[in-house]
């Protein structure tokens, strides 16, 4: 997919981005491009600067050095990492989408339908499950027919079983809308199948390329080797815990060090 699309100019290019918070360097010499029709996954450990880079790309944070090049007409759909609406604010899913400025009810219904959340259109936001809320937030991101979708930890709060389904949904949206997607994720192995290009950062770009290449890259392994194993263990463990609740005990592989987490 990305091979064809790279013939066209990129939707967005970040060049040599540097960001400091006080004396601390959060991003150094980070560059990034996203083409139409391409899914770029930004991975890295917690605190690696992923969300900071996203904020720079979105124009919410001015980099200390470097620049972001994008067509001024570029429509961006953004799905923030955490969006929790306080109980004190009564608001339905449909109304939440209308806050974007798109008030055409049929567009709102269609966007909710596209993400498989048509059922909760009239539900209060605070009554939604974690997965439903993420779908509604994604619906708001696609509401304005974006050229580029920026998804910060899209599956955060989605239960483990629902995660791969959610990534399928994102791939489907890319095909349907024909937009480019920049997606932040914790772990490579979950997004592997979904991604055209991986950019692995830890304050700087460690490595970049196709997912399989990156997963064998020495810098990736140095950075994520133990971390990825841990995530995998938690992943398996979390899945296993669901079985526990239904009374079925499945032995864990490589999760012995985390047994205490669930008491």
């Amino acid at each position, binding site marked *: 997919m990305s091979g064809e699309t790279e013939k066209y100019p990129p939707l967005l290019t970040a060049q040599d981005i540097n960001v400091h918070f006080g004396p601390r360097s959060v991003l150094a010499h980070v560059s990034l491009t996203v083409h139409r029709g391409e899914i770029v996954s930004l991975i890295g450990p917690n605190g690696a600067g992923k969300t900071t880079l996203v*904020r720079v790309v*979105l*124009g*919410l944070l001015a980099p200390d050095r470097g620049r972001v090049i994008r067509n001024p007409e570029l429509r*961006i759909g*953004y799905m*923030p990492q955490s*969006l929790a*609406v*306080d109980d*004190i*604010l*009564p*608001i*339905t899913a449909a*109304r*939440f989408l209308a*806050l*974007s*400025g798109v008030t055409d009810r049929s567009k709102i219904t269609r966007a909710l339908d596209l993400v498989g959340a048509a059922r909760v259109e009239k539900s*209060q936001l605070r009554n939604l499950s974690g997965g439903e809320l993420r779908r509604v937030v994604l619906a*708001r991101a696609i509401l*304005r027919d974006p050229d580029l979708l*920026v998804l910060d930890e899209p599956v955060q709060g989605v239960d483990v079983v629902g995660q791969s389904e959610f990534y399928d949904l994102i791939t489907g949206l890319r095909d349907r809308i024909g937009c480019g997607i920049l997606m932040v994720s914790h772990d490579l192995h979950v997004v592997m199948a979904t991604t055209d290009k991986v950019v692995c950062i830890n304050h700087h770009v460690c490595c970049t390329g196709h997912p399989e290449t990156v997963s064998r890259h020495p810098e990736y392994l140095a950075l994520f080797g133990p971390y990825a194993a841990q995530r995998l263990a938690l992943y398996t463990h979390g899945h296993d815990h669901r079985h526990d609740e239904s009374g079925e005990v499945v032995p864990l592989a490589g999760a012995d060090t985390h047994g205490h987490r669930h008491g």
Partner: protein
Amino acid sequence: MDDFVLRALAAGLGAALAAGPLGSFIVWGRMAYFGEALAHSALLGVALGLAIGLDPTWPVILVAGLVALMLAWLQGSRDLATDTLLGIVAQASLALGLVVLAFLKTVRVDLLAYLFGDVLAVTPSDVAFIWIGAAVALASLWRIWRPMLSLTVHEDLARVEGVDVPKIRVAFMLLIALVVAIAMKIVGLLPITALLIIPAATARCFSRNPEQMAVLAAALGCVAVAAGLWGSFVWDTPSGPSMVVASVAGFVLSRIGTGVRLARPS
């Protein structure tokens, strides 16, 4: 009924109508302490107004407006938590106001009237000012309603969608300053925050969308104002705190009502 009773009622209702919708945003955005800081700063406006021999209304709008702008500007700094900042501003302006008043030996000031409201202090021109001010506040809020609601839910998302967040925020803060100035005489400076947040909090459990909550908050505020004024006349209590008591009573009743409704198996 005496004229001054009607004037007090008209003034209170005007203030409550504007306070309901603005108070809803204060509740949604967790800005109660911000309203408090602006209300406290108004005392400095009162003191300065008296010092130069003016009716305090305009100095109050000016000082509260300047404090609102200063707070908007200071919130950009990261080394102080917002509540600390608001605490400093509230206490500093309240203390400055009291100190300035102490210097005005020649002016006899009924401080309690400003702090807690005085039903006898409302003149016909005050009533006119309150209703014009309330109309301006509500019309302005209507204009910034959608972007303000959007940034209350998620600021970054609102910005990506094209909302000019600093501009909307400053506009909202100035509207609060205006409401403080119009509610000052009848409600008093100290209880203003209560009139902003309690009706909104009461309205929450009866509302399914933001607009319902705002309208209901305005209506509940009007009921609290009327009941509070009635109590104030009957028992000769200060008007502001009486309204707050009425408002809190409504809040408690609504909570008990909701509790009973929730407890009943359906």
